[in-house]
């Protein structure tokens, strides 16, 4: 409940008890005229500590606001009592707005539930982390924080340790991503001379090849171009047909593409997700699109075909 009821008042009714907790005289002289006319207000008790439950807290705030009106009137009558009412007011305000300094008699004020220094909370399973996934995980963590209440709120020392660990994981994920890319380059051949090259992923259609359509990675430094295969990214129209007709073995390829779309480190991957296409593969594109939108890097164009 709001606060413990004094034993000597246990016999009085609830209104008296409420009044006494709020610093109003209890008894028969409850009229406003009497209250205003009587300069000797009893010294108000210390403002109640914020309540654990939201509903109760709201109730206490409302009652204090109710008190405020009386206090205003009393101040007009008796400036000497200003200091007392100031204490109540400060208590109310500090509870409402979480001001750093509480009321004079405030005890053990509960801390704010907001995280003072929000940090990324990427999921550790994103080993091939991309900007997009990081953002999504961050958003998910933020949501979890919002829903999880106290546990996800204040950065307790243990929480600090945890988040530091997560940060380390995220950094590790980045490193992993780089390593993965290096491995990919190693697989494709002479990666030593690709340092300093710009990288772009392209879909090439070449009717001289058996499979007309395939994914390539282009590396460029000035006039030097190098083309590498993107492993496992062969897109044939037949494969897409199979996928469209209800899954099958091509799903793996689609999944791979989906992963790449979101996890690719290039931002330009995320910038292409506005086209309308049937099929599940677009789900991730939409996600990336939304992420892009949320990061406000650019205005999202309508679909173009």
């Amino acid at each position, binding site marked *: 409940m709001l606060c413990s009821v004094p034993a000597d008042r246990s016999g009085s009714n609830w209104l008296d008890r409420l009044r006494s907790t709020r610093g109003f005289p209890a008894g028969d002289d409850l009229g406003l005229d009497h209250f205003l006319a009587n300069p000797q207000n009893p010294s108000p008790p210390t403002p109640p500590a914020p309540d654990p439950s939201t509903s109760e807290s709201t109730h206490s705030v409302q009652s204090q606001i109710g008190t405020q009106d009386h206090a205003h009137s009393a101040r007009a009558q008796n400036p000497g009592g200003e200091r007392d009412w100031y204490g109540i007011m400060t208590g109310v305000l500090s509870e409402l707005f979480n001001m750093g300094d509480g009321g004079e008699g405030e005890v053990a004020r509960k801390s704010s539930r907001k995280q003072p220094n929000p940090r990324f909370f990427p999921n550790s399973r994103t080993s091939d982390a991309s900007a997009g996934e990081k953002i999504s995980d961050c958003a998910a963590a933020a949501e979890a924080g919002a829903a999880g209440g106290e546990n996800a709120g204040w950065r307790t020392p243990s929480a600090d340790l945890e988040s530091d660990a997560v940060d380390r994981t995220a950094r590790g994920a980045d490193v992993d991503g780089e390593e993965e890319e290096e491995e990919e380059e190693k697989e494709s051949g002479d990666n030593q001379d690709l340092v300093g090259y*710009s990288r*772009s992923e*392209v*879909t*090439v*259609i*070449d*009717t*001289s*090849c058996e499979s*007309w*359509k395939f994914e*390539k990675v*282009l590396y*460029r430094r000035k*006039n030097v*171009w190098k*083309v590498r295969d993107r492993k496992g990214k062969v897109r044939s*129209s*037949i494969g*897409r*047909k199979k996928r*469209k007709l209800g899954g099958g073995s091509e799903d793996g390829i689609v999944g791979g593409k989906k992963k790449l779309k979101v996890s690719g480190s290039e*931002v*330009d991957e*995320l*910038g*292409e997700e*506005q*086209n*309308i*296409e*049937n099929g599940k593969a677009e789900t991730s594109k939409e996600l990336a699109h939304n992420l892009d939108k949320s990061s406000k*890097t*650019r*205005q999202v*164009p*309508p*679909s*173009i*075909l």
Partner: protein
Amino acid sequence: MAPGKKSRRSKKESKKLKKRRNASSAAAAAAAAAPADPNTSDTDWWDVFWRKNSPSPGSAVPEDEAEGFKHYFRVSKETFAYICSLVREDLISRPPSGLINIEGRLLSVEKQVAIALRRLASGESQVSVGAAFGVGQSTVSQVTWRFIEALEERGRHHLKWPDVSRMDEIKARFEAFCGLPNCCGAIDATHIIMTLPAVQTSDDWCDPANNYSMLLQGIVDDELRFLDIVTGLPGGMIGSKLLKFSGFFKLCECGKRLNGNTKTLIEKCEAREYIVGGASYPLLPWLITPYESDGSGLTDSISDFNAMHESARSLAVKAFSQLKGSWRILSKVMWRPDKQKLPSIILVCCLLHNIILDSGDKLHSDVALPGHHDFGYVEQGCKQVDPLGSALRENLAKNLQCRRESVPSK
């Protein structure tokens, strides 16, 4: 008040339900009808479209209905029916995924093909194409992409390297046309210009004319038919580099393409199969480029050769002008296209170009682009010269000169 509102709302809901039921029953009926007779052609869409877009005085649209059809869709009604038959299986709408008209009816295959062709042919925005057909922008987008995916697979046989007998015919026609024996085709490349969002802009896609573009390289026969294409590579790449990354180059280098019969020239020289290309391409044993002018003037035989070479090469230029003129989506600046999908759009335009030629349709004279297909781009000469290529070029020039000299004597 409240009960009244409630009743009104319930009335509305019941109306909506009725509508939905009607729509779904219509869709079901249409779906039931579609598989029953897949060859049924729906011409209602054309009547409605023609009424809506009939020629007004002073407009470029022909008065004749058949010509009007060609004007809007670039193909005759017969070729249109053929294209529909190619993609019908993929485009037949089945509820609930079927695309539905504003009237609540499923879109017929014909209307879907018409929407897609109009979008590709005009290059107009999805909104304006949709308005012409009474469908929304999103429908145009979906229909066009479905059509592209379908034709990309079903129309492959319209773009392939010719077999020996067909190649012999092509070579004979080339020789008759420009006097170059054993010439199999002409190569050229063009830029498909686009805009990119700031986050995607990269020097890789920025071409020498400071546009963002994607390259299309094509080899065409004497009838302007595409025999081979490569697309998807960024505009920052130069033409000779694009050639080297192409599968055609690799096949030629390892002797798996342009490896047909050689032809004996006048002075008992042999000429292997080759294609012709502009000065921006390297001179290779299978790719003949024109002689470069060093400023001191060219001999008559070389000038003659260059003229003949140019007449053969100009077929490729003409083909690209026709391609970009017929399918204006390629000649307009594409606004932020999906770079993964753009190659498919380009390929399908090439397939449609070939389908028109294979069907024997005659394009309107004003369809092709009036100027060069790659207006604003300067051809950069390539210095690479292969000795075998150089020798072949000399033999061809000599052969041409001998033929010239022998003709008056006859």
